[in-house]
């Protein structure tokens, strides 16, 4: 990890615009009152902030707590001190040894860095799926002209994809394509590094996150696309 070990979550967590550090917390309980999972498995946002203030980072890093949070920010929305609670959670997540990141998140990040998508789908499979689903669309009335544009240069819009659409729910790939088609929009899908989601956000892994975002910039340049449709 690039994070320097002598800095605590308190120092590392990004601040919101009003520069409210975790110390400002007056343990009022607004966050805990509003969080839907307060009390579940020992979760309590106020407690997390409290522990961060006291520098009890290690306990947090070793616990499930940062991973139970959906970082939905309902707590922050009402926090009278404007404390960036989700930022704190993400910072803690980032301090967790990568091999201890629970579930699929970090594995997805690694796969993405390696293969260009979070599920490690080989590109021939990808090409096949896109083409196949594209053809299905073209079979529908009114979409006869449709063909899924891969690596088309000078398109108006870059369209990245959510891995689950390619993998398990490819019937859902078609909706945007139909809309684009109906709107007579010129768009393109990159053949490599087509992943639209960026799990580095969830795992607290800035470096990987940056790499994945960088790929989008690359697409724009390489394919000479003018506009980006945010993937999510």
């Amino acid at each position, binding site marked *: 990890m690039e994070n320097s070990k002598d800095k605590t979550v308190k120092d590392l967590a990004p601040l919101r615009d*009003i520069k*409210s*550090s975790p*110390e*400002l*917390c*007056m*343990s*009022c*309980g*607004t*966050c*805990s*009152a*509003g*969080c839907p999972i*307060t*009390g579940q498995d020992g979760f*309590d946002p*106020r*407690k997390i902030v*409290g*522990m961060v*203030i*006291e520098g009890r980072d290690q306990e947090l890093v070793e616990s499930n707590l940062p991973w139970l949070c959906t970082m939905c920010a*309902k*707590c922050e*929305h*009402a*926090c*009278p*001190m*404007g404390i960036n609670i989700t930022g704190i959670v993400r910072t803690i997540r980032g301090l967790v040894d990568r091999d201890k990141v629970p579930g699929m998140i970090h594995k997805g990040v690694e796969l993405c860095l390696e293969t260009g998508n979070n599920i490690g789908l080989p590109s021939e499979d990808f090409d096949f799926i896109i083409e196949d689903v594209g053809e299905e669309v073209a079979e529908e009335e009114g979409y006869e002209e449709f063909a899924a544009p891969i690596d088309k240069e000078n398109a108006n819009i870059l369209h990245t994809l959510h891995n689950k659409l390619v993998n398990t729910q490819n019937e859902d790939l078609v909706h945007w394509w139909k809309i684009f088609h109906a709107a007579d929009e010129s768009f393109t899908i990159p053949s490599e590094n087509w992943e639209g989601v960026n799990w580095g956000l969830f795992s607290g892994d800035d470096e990987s996150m940056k790499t994945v975002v960088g790929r989008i910039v690359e697409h724009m340049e390489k394919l000479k696309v003018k506009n980006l449709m945010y993937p999510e």
Partner: protein
Amino acid sequence: MDRKFSTLVAGAGISGVRAALDLAELGYRVLLIDKKASAGGILSQLDYQFPNDHCGMCRTLPMIDRNNGAQFCLRKGIFHKNITFMPGCEIETVKGTPGNLSISLKRSPLGVDPEKCTGCLSCESVCPVTVKEDFNGNLSQRKAIYLPVPHNIPNKRVIDFESCTKCGECVSECPTNAIDITKDVGIETIDGIGSVILATGTELYNPDGVDLYNTSKIKDVVTATAFERIMSSSGPYKGKIQRPSDGKEIKKVAFIQCVGSRNLMIGADYCSSVCCMFALKEAALLAEKTKSSDSAIFCMDLRTFSRDGERYKERVKEKGVRFIRSRIHSVEKDDSGNPSISYVDADGKQKSESFDLVVLSTGKSQNLTHPSFIENEGVFGISETPDFKEISDSMINSSFASSKAIQIAKEYDYETKKSSTQINDDDPKLHIILCSCGNLFKENVDLTKITEDISRIYGIGITTIDQACSLEGWSELKSIIDEKGVNRLIIGACNPQIFSTKLSDNSLLTEIITLAEHISDTESVDEATKSILSEIASSIGRLKKYTPQKVRSMNISKRALVLGGGISGLSSAKTLSDSGVPVTIVEKSDKLGGNLPFISDETVIKSIKNLIEKVSSDSNIDILFNSELSSHKGVPGKFESVISKENTELIVQTGSIIVATGGGKASFDDENERVKTTFDLSIELMEKKVDAKNIVMMQCKDSRVEPFNYCSRICCGKALDNAIKIKEQNPDAKITMFYRDIMAYGDIEKKYTEARRRGVIFKRFEKEKYPEVISNDNGFTIKAFDFILNEDIEIKADLLVYSTGVAPQVDNLEKTLKLKTTVDGFIKEVDFKFRPVDTGKEGIFICGLRRNPANASEAEKEGVSAAQRALRLLNSEILISSGQVAHVRHSICSRCNACVTACPYTARFVSVEDRKVYVDDISCQGCGTCASVCPNNATIIEGFEEKGILDSIEAALG
């Protein structure tokens, strides 16, 4: 140049009214304006006040020269001969210098001529525009032409031009042509004003549109003010305590504190100071009124920092109100449509609870500033920023501001007008004037029968005037008075309030009958006639037997005795001396300044030193060091005090006494040099660095628990100052503060925020569990329970700082001066809210720490405020008694002294010389309690002679 008004007071809320009355009572003419169409400010909406859960606002009214003001409920309006009230007015600009300010006012039209409006309601009935009534927290509706405060007197309508469509229906319907909808906002300039007092108050935070509270989606979420209206019998539901959505009786309420306060996200880094007490009061009232006990106050700290607040809180708790330490995220609805709230309870569990109603304790609106003309010389703000204050604090701050205005009024020699009209005491010559009010009374009352009967039985003449309220009617009325040589008059009209002010300067004795009260849609002409007849008869009875007393005057000893040379005493003395009143200060020690050695704020120290300097060099102020009051006698205006000074005794004659003997640190002893008090630490920090690394601060040491069950108000602020200072000196110092409630009211909240920002750790503890301290070789270990982390904690410390609170001086003055004290030994004021520095014994005032815990600037202001009250007595050479006071007929008095015990003002005393009972005219307020306990009418109240009352009862039943 017109130099009519010595002072313009902007804002007619309780602060403005207090300031205006301060000046008016000294005889200065005041122009009182308010942006709104009516006076009264926020208090006009509130029926109840902590600590007695009732009102008592009328106690603000003058007690000396009281006939100059109206003698009725102050919430219904303010009337004083020296106060001119202009509604719908705002200051645009202020130019010029003190003594000659030129003020331009923006005047919004009210649409209705108050001189002509009879309050007949016909305009309202035809007005097609219905809007929400903000007076009732938008829970009821009103027309575009309406009565701004439903209980106002007189009940003049105004037009809300924002919603008025100018359809003109009301104009043609008005029977007295009182309505004009053509006028626009105008600018009016008034010159020659001495000074301006800005008492525009503040605005309440508006929670509408905040998605957390959902006031628009959940009808049963209301603001605290709206809830007050719900509980008011003049409110939207006429006193039925029901909720807005479905009319269900309200039993269980959730109060959400800090709505709009203590919130950096909205720029509200302050505490609004009053909401906690407000919520407590409302919760108590609800519990009382509906016999319910399941309400909850959701708070962070419960800021009960006023003197009696702590005990009040406990009483509320006994009523079953819960205090839950959880700020609320948002309000939702349960499946049955009740508002519901999620919160975290004491053991960290999340709970969801439904309530009948959710009350938002809204504080002051954020980002308010004073208008720029506050910078102009001669403009005095009641507070530094638009602020919320507890009523007693407001009263004190108002008098602080008015004392400055009085200096200017004096300096520039504004005319004073004090009067006690001598009522004509010739043999009674009665006449009756009835207004037929167009055709209203002609049609509904048999005026002929009335005239005949009165003449037959009483031999008194009656004249009927068509419209007495019109100009012609008025002059006709006056000519009748002159013509008939009348000295007693009975006026019957639809709305006679008009006459009471018009006739008030006259030596006529007037009785006013509201004729409209006798007419009812369901009753016949005969009934109304009979009813009016008996009321006239009744008035005749009273007027005939009214024996006006000669206005009495008394020379006063124009000197004040200030007991105590501390901060409040000094400011009192200074204010009095500046007003030309010689002062004797009696100081127990050998120096002035009181608690000066315990103050660490450089600016405050400087200002106190400055004050000492000024007082010491003031030739008008005598200072007696090493002396104490040993005994006291006399009446207000003429007190005689014996001062003992180093084995000698001196007698001082003064018109007034100000008790400012103060108080100090509560006693605390600890040998260990690593244990300090917050006060001592603050002094130490001025000079040197604190070398401790781990500092633990413990609040409320032997404080807010029996027997010292009150909040000392200043310790939290001081402890926060200390913490910030230590952090400034040494950012790595670890500071933990154990607290029960951080009493960082008002802008002290900013210190609390700052301390946290600097990394001071705050841990709350419960009253029942004071953190345990274990001393060891290296320092201390403090054991406590952490409510956030839900675990026992141990904190090491090498310096332990206790906030030990303050205590009143033990000086026995309550016995010497016969004053009342609180259970904690503070001298009690007569009314905590509305007369905070009056002791209840006229002429004796109380300020500073002897009355309640206060910081230096609060004490200073109290001192000025007390001086201000004393000035009412000391401002002139003679005191003129008001009419309507009690007298003793010594020839038939049996001296049972029942009256002496009964008098609420200790205005009666038994003379040592002749054992007779005497009344002090100045203290007597004419309440008549003495007369009712006197079996043989040896005590009489002017204007309420028993004979007159008995005759009027007899007549009424004739």
